[in-house]
């Protein structure tokens, strides 16, 4: 496996209502060991995955959101959030649990087009 590929994780679903966000994060963590060029894109309800102050106690579910903070330790630091998705939901980068790069739809489209592999969950 000499090649380095650009792997994009496309996150479009809200956390907790379904498990996709949580199990996607598990793939990202494992995938970080493969020394590829990893990016995460948060689009549509996917931006909710990064919302600060998630507290699942009263639902009995697992709060996996602090794990996003650990991504940097795994050298996963290209986190892109679509501006239009944030705006539609009345959110801004300050509402998010980790630092991200906010991109316009056009910028994100351009970035997506340069990828080798896109993981969708």
């Amino acid at each position, binding site marked *: 496996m000499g090649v380095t590929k650009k792997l994009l994780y496309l996150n479009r*679903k*809200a*956390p*907790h*209502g*379904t498990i996709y966000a949580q199990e996607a994060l598990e793939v990202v963590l494992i995938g970080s060991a493969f020394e590829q060029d990893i990016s995460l894109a948060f689009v*549509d*309800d996917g931006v*909710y995955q990064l*919302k*600060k*102050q*998630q*507290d*699942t*106690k*009263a*639902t009995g*579910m697992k*709060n996996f*959101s602090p794990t996003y903070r650990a991504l940097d330790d795994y050298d996963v630091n290209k986190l892109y959030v679509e501006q239009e998705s944030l705006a*539609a*939901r*009345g959110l801004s980068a300050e509402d998010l649990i980790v630092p991200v790069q906010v991109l316009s739809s056009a910028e994100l489209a351009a970035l997506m087009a340069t990828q080798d592999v896109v993981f969708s969950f």
Partner: protein
Amino acid sequence: MNTLHTVNKSPFERNSLSSCLRLAAAESSILLFEDGIYAALQGTEFSETIQTALATHSIYVLVPDLQARGMSLEQVIAGVQAVDYAGFVDLTTTHYPIQAWL
């Protein structure tokens, strides 16, 4: 007794809330829970829809699902009423029938 409609999906992802609002009889109530709580928040593209609906419906939001998603009661649209699971149960006893918009 009036119907309780339950909506558990984000209004951004699915059409369940808009269909519920189109078909919910006046005076019926709506409970937003699971990913449905995103509709209950101020400052989103859907806030106005809920504000308008409050004129003809009682609307409730499940607080445990709100907290799980990092949202607080202060961010909820004025007039939307907060309930916990016990309150959810109470709503199902004071309404009839219960209609889920899956």
